[in-house]
Structures are given as structure tokens and as C-alpha cells.
């Protein structure tokens, strides 16, 4: 599994454009909000938690459709399925690699995005924590989605339709946590709920993805 993770890392390092595109997409979408709702600081701060989470989830969704499709096209997927790793392990590594190369870089960009949306500085730390958990949750769900839509015509369109509704709980608890931190009340319960969601997805989503990979 370590060997596969190293390979994914090497591939991402060789094609940094994908990671950079997700980061810039995230920043651009958050930058659109002030243009749409006007630059009034209070309005923006009110919008910030939801806007940050929604933009981050959309940005993390971008490279998902290539997660298994690229492997299937050049024949690597068959070889990986015969590599001795169980399909579930394969899916888990793919999900972690997606998070490391897409979700984690979004955390670096989050202070800039938070500043553009006038989020109080006290909430920035919680924002990073929430985005880390929410994007990991999306990486896991998205891996299952990518495995399911592999081989489907227009799988790239189907994937968000399948994955985003399932990400609604992460959206609710994540935004609530950031809002709580911004208004100075306890954010712990929301983050704990989000953590519980992610913990549940950690074994379940790779299991589903692995089963889907075997059928293809």
C-alpha cells in the first residue's frame, strides 16, 4: 500500500497542474461571492461558512472523475487489481492520495479564502479543521462514486450528482462549526459529528468502491 501511495504522490508531483487547478478553483469561487452579494462585511461574514465549505467540496470534486478512469484507460487498473492488493485497499489508498493531493492543498488556501469572505480571524483555525475533515469525507465518498461511475458514459457528470447529495451532512455540521466559532460559542459538538461521519466513511466507502471495481 505504501508503494501505491508513493506512486500516486510521484504522479501528482509530476502533474502539479491538477492540484493547482483545484486550489485556484476554490479561491475563484469564493472570490465570486463578494461580487454577487455585494461587499458589505456583515453580509459576507454571514455567508462565509457555507460558501467556504461549498467551494471546497466543489473544488475537491474536480479531479475525481479521472481517479480510476485514467487508470482504466492505460490498462493500469487491471494490473492494480492483480497487484495482490485487495480492491478495498486499492480504493482506500486512492482516496487518501486524492485527499493529500487535492484536499490538503485547499487547507493552505483557506486563510486567503476566509479573508476574502471576511470571516472573523478567531474562526480560521476551526475552518482549517472543518475543511480537513469535510474534504476527507468527500474524498472517501468520491472514490466510491468514481468506482461506480467508471465505464459509464458521461461518468464525469454522473459523479457529482451521486456524491454531492451524500455530502450534505458534512456541509451542515461543517458550516455550523465554523459559524459557532465565528460567533464565539462552542464548536466542538459539530466538529465531533463531522469527525464521526468521516470515521464511518473511512471503512465503508472503500468497501463499496472495492466492490464496484471488481464488477467492472
Amino acid at each position, binding site marked *: 500500500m505504501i508503494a501505491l501511495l508513493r506512486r500516486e504522490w510521484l504522479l501528482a508531483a509530476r502533474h502539479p497542474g491538477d492540484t493547482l487547478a483545484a486550489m485556484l478553483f476554490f479561491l475563484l469561487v469564493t472570490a465570486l461571492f463578494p461580487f454577487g452579494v455585494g461587499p458589505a462585511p456583515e453580509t459576507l461574514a454571514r455567508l462565509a461558512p457555507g460558501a467556504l465549505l461549498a467551494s471546497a467540496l466543489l473544488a475537491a470534486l474536480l479531479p475525481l472523475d479521472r481517479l480510476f478512469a485514467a487508470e482504466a484507460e492505460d490498462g493500469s487498473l487491471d494490473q492494480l487489481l492483480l497487484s495482490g*492488493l485487495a480492491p478495498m485497499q486499492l480504493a482506500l489508498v486512492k482516496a487518501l492520495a486524492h485527499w493529500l493531493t487535492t484536499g490538503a492543498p485547499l487547507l493552505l488556501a483557506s486563510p486567503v479564502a476566509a479573508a476574502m469572505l471576511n470571516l472573523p480571524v478567531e474562526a480560521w483555525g476551526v475552518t482549517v479543521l472543518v475543511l480537513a475533515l469535510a474534504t476527507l469525507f468527500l474524498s472517501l465518498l468520491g472514490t466510491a462514486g468514481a468506482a461506480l461511475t467508471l465505464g459509464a458514459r458521461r461518468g464525469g457528470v454522473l459523479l457529482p450528482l451521486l456524491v454531492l447529495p451524500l455530502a450534505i451532512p458534512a456541509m451542515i455540521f461543517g458550516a455550523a462549526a465554523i459559524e459557532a466559532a465565528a460567533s464565539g460559542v462552542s464548536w466542538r459538538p459539530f466538529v465531533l459529528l463531522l469527525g464521526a461521519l468521516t470515521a464511518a466513511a473511512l471503512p465503508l466507502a472503500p468497501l463499496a468502491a472495492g466492490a464496484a471495481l471488481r464488477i467492472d
Partner: protein
Amino acid sequence: MLDAIDLAAIRGERVVFAGLSFSLTAGEALLLTGANGAGKSTLLRLLAGLVPPAEGSLLWHGSDALADGPAHAARLRYLAHADALKPGLTLEENLTFWARLWGGDTESALEAVGLQGLGHLPARMLSAGQKRRAALARLALAPVPLWLLDEPSVGLDAASISLFGRLLAAHRAAGGMVVAATHVELPLADAATLRLGDMA
């Protein structure tokens, strides 16, 4: 060692082949021939455990080979039409990944297919024949009992085919088995031939 009993495969609504039986013991080779669409690649994917048989069973030393997927995968190498090389990685990085999973030495595998000295090139810079040889180099990494080869010689020049013949001979001399689908002559001495499509 490897026994196929009454194998059948269905693709879409069509029976590709049915009632297919053969057995292979150590050192033997089986050539799959037949027209396009006769099911050669399907049979190889089935033997690899990538698709389940619609009917029949595959035995390894007398017990069900496909019951434990990863264990079956560990005793075979499958060479498909696609070369499974990542264009952005160098030849050496491509092979090193598989060497980490399977064991074996990247340098000597490259040498076995005549690609020594090209390890630093990105895979996208290689010609079609060189990519094919890089895919063949995976076979040379670590010994396994069963090779499943889907038209292995496509794109190879005469020198590479003789290198490939040496790889095959060494594999069989060590007790390895080969199942190869092909339309052309392969450097495989006294191999049995199974013609697909005759039953239809």
C-alpha cells in the same frame, strides 16, 4: 496444476465460448488462436480472475483458483493489450513501483528486454515497441508460476522477439506455465494450441 473445466463466458447477451476445458502442468505452454472476437482476451481475463466465469470452474492444484482473488493474483502475471505505463513517470519509476509490490530488480528486468540505459526517459517518449518491451519487463521482475499474455509480440522487432523468446524459455525451464493469445508465430517451442470459436 491449472485445470479449466467447462468454462463459459457471456458478454452482453452472447455466449463467447462454452464447455472449454484444458489443463496445464509445470513448464507447459498453451497458444490461444481464433478469429477476432472468438474470446481469446475474454478467456485470459477470466483466467486472471478479472471477470468471473459464467459457468465452469478453474482449479489450481485441485482447489478453486478464484475463491481467493489476491492469492490467485499473486501467482500470475497478466500482459494485456494496454501497456499500463504512466506517461508522466520515467521507465524506471514505472517499473520500480511494480518491483516494490512484487519484488525483483528494475535494472535487470530492463536489461532482459533490451531497454538498459533508457530507464531515465519518461514513458511518453518511448516508441510503441519500446512500451511493449517495458510491459514485458514486468514479467521479468519476479518469478510467478503462470503468465497470461494477450498478443505479447505486437509491435516488437525481430531482436526483441528473440529476447522475448529467451524470457519465455527461462520461465518454462523454471517450471512456469504460459497461456498466450496470438495471431502470429510466437517464440514458444512445442506449445499446445487451443482454437477458440470452433464450437460456435
